[in-house]
């Protein structure tokens, strides 16, 4: 069969990609306090430990607050930028978009450090809000990329047609453009949400004394006793991400089907 060797390689590669994730539930349900082989008995005690952990609960609430806020802010900013880049031509367009997209090629530690210096200099207290500021900054380029694709696949005359049929500029946008880019908006929200939820280094610099999920996990990884619980937490997080991703994929396909595009996996 053609590509047999390649297929075997690809499957091995998938195994490499999934190896750590497959191990997660193994240790999450293992009663041994040391995360190593051989395994002990089956247990769910680590999950109940998760439930009772108040710091963790606080970290979760913080992380969700940050991720939802950053996702919404980044998507709104991304819509402005994507529309500006697809619909208009103006002087300085390249430079402006370049600056907005810069965090994509900037190590996160640089973003975190520079923001930290300025926020401290201005006298802003570090909190959940400062993390939202940083996360919005790094999520916006992803939103812009996703939404630019969504906007540029639209026929320019659709909006004009709506205006021609009697709708105002805003209503033309609301009735025609918005429904058509809705799958893009959903992808942007989900992607930003996931990036923010998982982001460690900026949160580490900007959260002050507030825990977020990644900074909490990072602090616990130093204590061997806490590891099994972290494995349980990881299992929950992985399950949640897969659920979210499946949802995102469902929306994307539905959006594609609705406008009659062929499904090419999001990479035309």
């Amino acid at each position, binding site marked *: 069969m053609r590509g047999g060797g390649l297929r075997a390689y690809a499957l091995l590669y998938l195994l490499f990609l999934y190896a750590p994730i497959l191990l997660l539930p193994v240790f999450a349900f293992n009663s041994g306090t040391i995360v190593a082989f051989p395994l002990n008995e089956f247990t769910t005690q680590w999950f109940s430990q998760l439930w009772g952990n108040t710091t963790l609960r606080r970290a979760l609430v913080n992380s969700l607050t940050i991720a939802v806020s950053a996702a919404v802010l980044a998507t709104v900013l991304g819509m402005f930028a994507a529309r500006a880049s697809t619909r208009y031509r103006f002087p300085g367009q390249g430079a402006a978009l370049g600056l907005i997209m810069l965090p994509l090629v900037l190590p996160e530690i640089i973003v975190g450090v520079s923001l930290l210096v300025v926020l401290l200099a201005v006298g802003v207290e570090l909190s959940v809000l400062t993390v939202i500021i940083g996360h919005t900054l790094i999520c916006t380029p992803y939103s812009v990329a996703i939404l630019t694709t969504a906007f540029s696949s639209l026929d320019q005359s659709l909006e004009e047609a709506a205006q021609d049929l*009697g709708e105002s500029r805003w209503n033309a946008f609301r009735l025609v453009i918005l429904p058509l880019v809705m799958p893009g908006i959903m992808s942007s929200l989900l992607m930003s949400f996931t990036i923010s939820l998982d982001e460690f280094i900026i949160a580490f610099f900007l959260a002050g004394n507030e825990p977020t999920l990644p900074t909490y996990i990072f602090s616990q990884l130093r204590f061997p006793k806490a590891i099994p619980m972290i494995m349980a937490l990881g299992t929950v997080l992985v399950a949640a991400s897969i659920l979210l991703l499946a949802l995102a994929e469902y929306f994307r396909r539905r959006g594609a089907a609705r406008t009659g595009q062929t499904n090419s996996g999001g990479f035309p």
Partner: protein
Amino acid sequence: MTAQTSGPAPNPGLAPAPAAAGPARDAQGRPTPISSRRAMIECRGVHKYYGDYHALRGIDLTIREAEFFSLLGPSGCGKTTLLRTIAGFEDISSGVVLIDGRDMARVPANARPTNMVFQSYAIFPHLTVAQNVAFGLRRDPRSRAEKAAAVEEALAMVGLKGYGARAAHALSGGQRQRVALARALILKPKVLLLDEPLSALDRKMREQMQVELIKLQRQVGITFVLVTHDQEEALVMSDRIAVMFEGEIAQLSYPEELYSRPVSRRVADFIGMMNFLPVRILGDSDAGVRVDVPGFGEFDIPAANVSRADPGDPGPSVGFRPEAVTILSRDAPAPHRETPGVIEEVVYYGDMTYYDVRLEGAERPVRISMRNVFGRDIQDLGTRTRVSWSPGSLILFR
């Protein structure tokens, strides 16, 4: 720049539908002459700049009620810009646009009594056919049922009865165009603007839609303004045509006039096929202009057949359409003057045959078309033949 309007009433071959008297009709239901109708669109000194680019250079034109009007020209001539100016999608840099007597300055596209069929049709892909057609009825105070009936009626008018529930993205090109037409016409605009509406269709579909659009226009009796780069399409469909080059109207006239009396060599070259020959002008005479054309000799061209040369032309020339001269059968007597020549190329088209004939004394061959009539042989390559012509079938560009 002045646009000229003259000539006889248009399209005698197309009999009017036996409709009741309406706009632009007399008591018997016959169309009134266009020149006597009310003005629907008036452009006065319209200029449009994009930065330094001068897209429209002083457009003056009047489009009348219930007229099928075409803006014809090569790409980049400003015809689409002019259409979008009328629709309200482009601001004008100076000048006035009136629609039905009302100044359109500061009237946005959504408030103008025009509707547009876009080149891409711009069918909303997330809506059904019926939702697309009903899009402009959102603020219409009629009941839901009345609107649904109006949608059904509009769909029936464009031959899409029963298609309402279909998803718009599942339609073919021709069906999309019909939806776009129904969507625009349901709003009963004073003017329907069509931006190259047939360019995306295949040849057969295009020819079918040309006829349907003519019928539809006659049926609804509103002004249609068509933008096209296809001269054949413009000739077939229009009551009048404005030929545009580089942001200016070069000629505005009836199709027959445009074809037979082009005002300049450039218009003649753009509309249909024309042979151009170098000419020596000998002087004005009582009968017109005395000229010497290699292959044709010395003769007088009637004053009515004298047009302008364009600044870019290689000097004065005479032109004639391929069907304006005739290749004579072997022994037939010439009705007018005749010139001997040799057939250098034969291109057979089924209904027509094109011959490239080198006339005696001419440098280059000229193209002559002959309708293929049953019983008349196609002439062979290399045949010595005679070409019959009259001074009235030639146009002088000086």
